[in-house]
């Protein structure tokens, strides 16, 4: 599994249909017909990825929510792993890294 690069930004794939039911989110990937169910925290991350965000930005938003009472490093690690999984499943995308000259 490719770990996400801290500093890179991520956003959810725009055309994927999804539904929030109770505290969970169901996401449907029509290209491979996979159906994914995200728990409460996963649903919140999915919401936050409506716009491009980095992992630190996601962590800060979750802390603001007051969802966790553990150290930042643990949260950041878990969020990073989760985002990597979303990328692997084709639900989240990341823009290519810019080179030194800005292209």
């Amino acid at each position, binding site marked *: 599994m490719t770990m996400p690069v801290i500093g890179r930004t991520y956003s959810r794939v725009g*055309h*994927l*249909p*999804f*539904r929030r*039911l*109770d505290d*969970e*989110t*169901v996401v*449907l*990937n*029509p*290209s491979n*017909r996979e*159906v*994914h*169910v995200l728990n409460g925290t996963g649903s919140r991350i999915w919401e936050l990825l409506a716009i491009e965000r980095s992992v630190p930005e996601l962590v800060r938003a979750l802390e603001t929510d007051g969802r966790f009472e553990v150290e930042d490093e643990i949260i950041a690690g878990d969020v990073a792993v989760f985002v990597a999984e979303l990328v692997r499943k084709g639900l989240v995308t990341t823009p290519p890294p810019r080179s030194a000259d800005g292209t």
Partner: protein
Amino acid sequence: MPRPETEVAPADLLLSIGSVVGHLALSRVPASLLAMVRERYDAFVLPPSPKVERAFSIAIVFHPEPSPVEAAAIVVAGPPVAVSDRRIEIRRWDFEAILETRATEPEVFRGAATCSASPGSLDTLLRVLWSIFTLRAGGALFHACGLRHGELGILAPGPSGAGKTTLARKIVNPDDVLSDEVVAVHRDRDQRWRVSGSPFWGELRRSGISMRSFPLAALVFLQRAATLRVESLRPPEALQRALGCVLSFESSAETARMSLATMTALCQEVRPVVGASALDTTGGEFLAALAPFLDGNAPEDTAVDNPRELISELRAHLKRHRIYAFRPTGSSMQPSLHSGDSLFLERVRLEDTLPGDVLVYWRPGAVPEQDALVCHRMIARVSAGRRARVYAKGDALCEIEQFEEGQDAEVLAKVRAASRDTRTWPMPGRAGSLAILAGSLARMPLLKLVRFLR
């Protein structure tokens, strides 16, 4: 080299599956394939009157089945199914179809297809077509076992191996199984969910009973287990399972959105449960375990509200039992028949009828609510090419109506006898059968056709 099979004259079929009506104009069809088609889809066939509103009309030309070597060499470019607002393209190694809408008739897709002359190829093409149009009508085709439980319907979806056919085999009355493979769900006019059978079956290889639908009382996701267990399912998990069981051949985002919206509504409005059963669980035990979960869903009024479905069920009863009895209302046949008389029907072929016979025939309308079951006296029958033209009239009416049998209307039965108060008398025909017909009344349940007979 085997001789090519004789092709029969082109045939029109109007099929109603779930809430979707589709017209098929079949040509270059081998005789044996047409015979299979009529048998397999008969329960869902409507008289192909041009009045009947349809979602699509497609002309299918059959070609000989390719050999395995030829089939392996066929390369299909592009996605198997591509659907837009105005165009549908379907491609597989054994069939190809293109349908479009016209500006003058934007509600109906019209087109053409070629199809390998094999039952499997045609069946798959029809599954694809109905999956597309059922979704667009706000419903869905499911990989599921569908059951009738009294006047309620049960949808039991599951992937291959979950136990759909196993459950179907365990149901004591085979007529309570709507299908062991593909079942349709749709909303009625009051936006309540209903479930109906289809001609698409699995291992049980049956062909369906009728077009009748039932109020959907339970959404039971099947799975195998060591012991019987029925328990509620959280909506997100139910939605995930439901999406996995919808019959869909499309991969566009728009279709996925439609599917997600429909399944979300279904899982929120019909109580989802998981039904886990063992191999030795009987059908009765399964239904008994499910019963507590049905009560909350039973709508107050479960009566069929749709003449088309009920007439199709009458046709199925006549096909199965040959005779039937019911008590219609209406005054068009006075003085011979009065409102409230019991009528004894016998299934009949038109060619075996004579002028003077009182016939019961199905005259479809534009929409299911406008279908009519008519009981009038045949005045004359005239050959008109492949079909016969029938002239009929209510005894109390002046107007003579005419229809082409098998096109505008379908003759289902003739009235062999009638009963009023305690007196029973034969209608024109063989009086010797009267005692048998009268004796059958006690055993025959009366259909709720009262409102629909004209």
